């Protein structure tokens, strides 16, 4: 009856991964593989933007105002040196997109990590401790969940601006990360709490209690590894959301400053040229943003279905 009879030697971790349903469903979905490829390429070229990008758009010495507002290379008046055209200051759009994606991804990843740390900790404690601790923590989460993440991010951002006048430019990214993280930790907390509630009643946890392990050890060694699956799914979906929120805040002018623009900032800058016909300044960063978010969302969607066999 058991798989143990079939094979003689236990498999290595790597072999198990390649034999898993997760890997199987990955290799059997071309869309998902494409999404993974796109994500990897974007992350790679963003991280190594200084080497990949043809120009450094923030090096004033490289800029020439004569090259400003050039359309994409294949259009009339285009310059083959600037594939996707240039903006009002003569910066190469393609390069600014790569540098912008760097900021977007940085804020996205950092805020997901911070939110995950807060959320997982709160969820584990609430789920394991139960009682009053649980009630209070979850009440707070419920109230916060009533309000959309974007509103909370805006509010935190506004408050931080008020608290840290002047120094804001330098702290912009930090403020943004905190704002997005504080607006999204609830998702992790609720999921981890409900999984912890389930896992807590599982007999392996009781077995650990009978052995005499103290609660923190049980939480970290036994419960945490078993509640991480859904956290991974949320983290992927939240990464897409965090990138969108960052872009939105930057677009609204309360995100990262124009000195180190993210994709959202670029779109905001380009938006002013929309009516004068220089559409490429907006459209290409916009497309870049959509492709990045769509690829991450596709991965998240696949991961959710693949880790939740009920849905198949």
């Amino acid at each position, binding site marked *: *009856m*058991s*798989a*143990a009879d079939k094979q003689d030697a*236990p498999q290595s971790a790597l072999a198990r991964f390649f034999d898993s*349903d997760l890997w*199987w469903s990955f290799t059997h979905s071309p869309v998902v593989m494409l999404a993974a490829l796109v994500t990897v390429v974007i992350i790679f070229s963003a991280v190594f933007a200084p080497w990949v990008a043809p120009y450094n758009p923030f090096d004033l010495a490289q800029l020439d105002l004569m090259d400003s507002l050039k359309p994409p290379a294949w259009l009339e008046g285009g310059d083959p040196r600037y594939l996707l055209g240039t903006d009002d200051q003569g910066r190469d759009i393609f390069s600014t997109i790569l540098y912008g994606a760097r900021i977007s991804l940085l804020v996205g990843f950092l805020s997901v990590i911070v939110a995950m740390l807060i959320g997982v900790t709160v969820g584990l404690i609430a789920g394991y401790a139960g*009682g*009053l601790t649980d*009630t209070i923590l979850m009440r707070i989460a419920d109230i916060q969940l009533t309000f959309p993440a974007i509103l909370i991010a805006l509010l935190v951002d506004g408050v931080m601006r008020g608290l840290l006048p002047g120094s804001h430019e330098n702290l912009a990214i930090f403020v943004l990360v905190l704002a997005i993280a504080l607006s999204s930790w609830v998702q992790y907390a609720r999921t981890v709490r409900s999984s912890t509630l389930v896992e807590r009643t*599982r*007999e*392996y946890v*009781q*077995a*650990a*209690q*009978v*052995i*005499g*392990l*103290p609660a923190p050890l049980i939480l970290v060694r*036994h419960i945490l*590894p*078993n509640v991480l699956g859904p956290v991974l799914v949320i983290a992927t979906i939240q990464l897409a959301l965090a990138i969108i929120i960052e872009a939105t805040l930057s677009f609204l002018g309360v995100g990262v400053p124009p000195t180190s623009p993210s994709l959202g900032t670029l779109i905001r800058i380009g938006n002013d040229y929309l009516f004068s016909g220089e559409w490429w300044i907006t459209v290409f960063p916009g497309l870049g943003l959509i492709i990045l978010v769509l690829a991450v969302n596709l991965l998240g969607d696949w991961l959710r279905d693949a880790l939740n066999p009920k849905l198949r």
Partner: protein
Amino acid sequence: MTEAQDTPALLDIRGLKVEFPSRRGVLVAARDVDLSLQAGEILGVVGESGAGKSTIAYAIMGLIEPPGRMAAGEIRLKGERIDGLPREKMRKIRGKRIGMIFQDPLTSLDPLQTVEAQLVETMRTHLPISESEARARAVELLGQVGIPNPAERVKNYPHQFSGGMRQRVVIALAISCEPEVLLADEPTTALDVSIQAQILDLLRKLVRDKGMGMIIITHDMGVIAEVTDRVAVMYRSRMVETGPSEKILTHPDHPYSRSLIAAVPPADHRIERFPLVEYIEKAGDEQAKLDLSTHWLGQARDFGSHEETLLKVEDLTMRFMTRPSLIPSRRRYMTAVDHVSFAIRNGEVFGLVGESGSGKSTVARLICGIHKPLSGRIHFAGEELTAFTSRRAANHLRRQMQMIFQDPYSSLNPRMKVRDIVAEPIRFHKLASSNAQVRRIVSDLLDHVGLGASAALRYPHEFSGGQRQRISIARALATRPRFLICDEPTSALDVSIQAQILNLLKDLQEELGLTMLFISHDLPVIRQMCDRVGVMQHGKLLEVAETESLFTSPRTDYTRHLLKLMPRMKRAA
């Protein structure tokens, strides 16, 4: 059962084969199944989990979930072929000519509709009757299935009925259009023993009164003995034997049926060991006797055997909050354990028996410190456990008591290798001096519970239920305990595996001189395992007696009631 050949059987299945294609190949859930059912007859389909019993019922109903499909065979209802009928025609047969009852009454009914609405909808789908006629009949049906006050209850929602009552409602729905065939898929498995008996009685009566034919699918030999006329035994998707119940229960032909029946614990006498069922799963070789003076398990057994009483429980009380609230006055509690006192002597196996919700498992969890009692005292090895304020202080005592849990699928951390699972208590209590020694002890323990040392590097999901329970036992032994709590250790296992595990526990108990608290709802198992037994109901301990005297001369009405419900199988002499 000599039927004239010219009248076709009520239901006739020939050469049925059901397949579920998956990426790891085609899983055949049932093959070469031949069955026939006559009107007024109750046919049992028995087999262990995964044997393909339920698949037959779904195939008859035409409800096999895709991608599963019926790959071969034919199904005839009164001679007319019904497999492969167009969807709409098949729908008209379901509920009208063939009714079906599911296992879990708590989830079988639409929670948002009244019982009446569901009954009326079903009848008006199949029968040409008016709304008011259907309503009148709904009340009548509820009366027939034994629901008191049917005219009023018919207006209720499912959540207002208890589990047993809900199963009656499900039965009423299944028979509302007077089907010729009734399929019951484990209809009593989710219910308590006393309710089980009532539901079986009801089903038998309905079949006799209405002249239906019924197929009852179960893993429980007691149910088979109780109600069926004929039995079909399934083993690994094949039907290995069919015949009159009387004969199969006493003189089975097929070796599998024989071993299956031999593995059922006898209710009327005590046996030394269970006959091993080699047919299913390697039971593990007989273990060489351990020499405790040299073996690791024998080391540091400094606790000696001087105390007469190892565990004493006094006035133990525990309650659960059933409705949490920030306001104390709005909280609701359920008393799970109500002033329970008993003592366990050194070296004995003490049983606790009772229906679900009687508080027996809670007692176990209070003793080993998973729950905290509201009041009362627990003494272990001469020290008062309940007097310790910190966990750490009681660790040296906790190490001496371990627990084996009910559900082999949840009692092992799925993310840990078997080696780490078994090694965790050794490392935590620092019972070994080096990693190499830990590893040696783990393989020794795994070997000793009949798994073989190679199991250490695998993950729990690679093992079957019985094997996992062996891993649990190895983990429990790893602290070198003197007191072992077994909480329904075999109730999630198939009967043949149960026999192996019970044998193993018996051997270990003798070999290591363990004291045991053995908890079960299953009286025959209790009779085989325990020296003394306590009977619990609603959190109270009703009586404590020597096992044999409890079975032969029970003192309380409740014990007599439980004994009466205990399924008894006639056996070959």
